[in-house]
């Protein structure tokens, strides 16, 4: 990953969503992107020019654009039409983003286009987040990493975030080896990231 001092940046054509530019590099803001927050906390997974990424919950494509600066190819899955409009704009200017308009909870819908990847990054707002991760496990290569960001409030607004974290771990354990779990504070409140392998 590229750092300028304490600032995480990526090397690509600037001006995707009004991001700041530092010495010709695009600043990747940890307060906006959960993946960037993970790198700032020293827990990110290295992405190189040969990394294949499956990104679930691509939204407007802001984080996806940074990932695409580093990776070989990004399969960007998003279900909602309005964010997908923006994502298509981003993908149109970058040759290595493959936009997939489908529901991450139904990976069989995009199995005919997505290949085995080295990194799955999942950031979807759904009470079924753990289940969605399990269903997408087939795309992960043997040595690959699965990063699951969970907004504990979208699973249960009333439960303590730590309780939800425990529930997610219990759901994941039969299917994944959990290497790490990290709270994304101070960058994002009540968000926890699990780094897993199969």
């Amino acid at each position, binding site marked *: 990953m590229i750092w300028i001092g304490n600032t995480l940046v990526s090397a690509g054509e600037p001006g995707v969503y009004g991001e700041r530019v530092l010495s010709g590099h695009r600043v990747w803001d940890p307060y906006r992107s959960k993946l960037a927050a993970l790198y700032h906390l020293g827990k990110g997974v290295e992405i190189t020019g040969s990394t294949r990424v499956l990104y679930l919950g691509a939204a407007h494509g802001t984080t996806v654009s940074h990932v695409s600066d580093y990776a070989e*190819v990004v399969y960007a899955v998003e279900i*909602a*039409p*309005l964010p*997908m*409009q923006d*994502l*298509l704009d981003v*993908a*149109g200017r970058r*040759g*290595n*983003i*493959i*936009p*997939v*308009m489908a529901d991450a909870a*139904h*990976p*069989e*819908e995009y*199995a*005919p*286009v*997505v*290949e*085995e*990847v080295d990194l799955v990054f999942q950031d979807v707002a759904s009470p079924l987040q753990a289940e969605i991760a399990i*269903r997408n496990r*087939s*795309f992960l290569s043997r040595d690959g990493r699965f990063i699951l960001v969970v907004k504990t409030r979208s699973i*249960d*607004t*009333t439960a303590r975030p730590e309780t939800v974290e425990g529930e997610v771990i219990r759901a994941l354990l039969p299917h994944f080896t959990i290497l790490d779990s990290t709270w994304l504070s101070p960058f994002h409140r009540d968000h926890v990231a699990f780094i897993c392998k199969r």
Partner: protein
Amino acid sequence: MRSYWFGDVDDEGCTRADGDADALAARLASIRIQPGEIIPADWKLAVDCGAARDRADYLGRLREVCMRVARDRVAAGLGGKDTELVRMVLALEEIDESMNQLTERLTDWYRVRHPEAGRKYRPRDSRRVLAAIAGDAEGPVKDLLDGILSLRGIRSRLAAEIGDRAAVLLPNCSALTGGLVAARLMTLAGGVSALARLPASSIQVLGARGALFSHLTRGTPPPKHGIIFQHLRVHNAPRDARGKVARVLAGRLAIAARIDENRGTLDPGFIGEADRLIGAAGGRR
């Protein structure tokens, strides 16, 4: 046999799918895979059967097909007859929220400038408050007041337009609850066909999500009604009959939504019978 965007793969090898990006996109839409049987695509197979020259070519072609599919799906997702109505309802709710907030700010502001104003600027009816302030408002107070009054005009025109469109899109639901409530129910459900697929019990509590979840998790009393409370027949029913009226109305709405989705025309016979049932539930004969 496993199907991929570039062709079909079986033990014998790979059979390339022919045609341009449009044809491949159409083919992709017809591929069905069982949830438990996901085998990721392999670019080398595509090269083997001549669908791509190398990895770069594979990714380039795949990207073109996927962009096309995504563009079509965005158009389909936004092209529904109900999509614009949903946006209109959401805008209306935002305007209501803003008007209330601004009216409250304006009232507080006015009272600071007129310490003698007292209680008469605190009634619940915002129209009376605004009328009272209009008497001697000037400068920025007057500007803000004009802004609120102009929002009110926007609101009533928007509400009328929503009602008109709902009467076309949801003729039977609109006949039961009025167009505005019908449009709100449709928005909460996520579209006309989503509403038509909801059971009556869900329609009854649409818009009461907070109350429903606190019932499920904490055992508080279940909500009797959500947005359909705004309908006069529920609203004006005696307290002890409200739950019953809401239940019967929701039951009729579930059927009305299905008629709207599948037939799309008003069914006077059904509406007459529904009106009678809902009236009876409220104690009227």
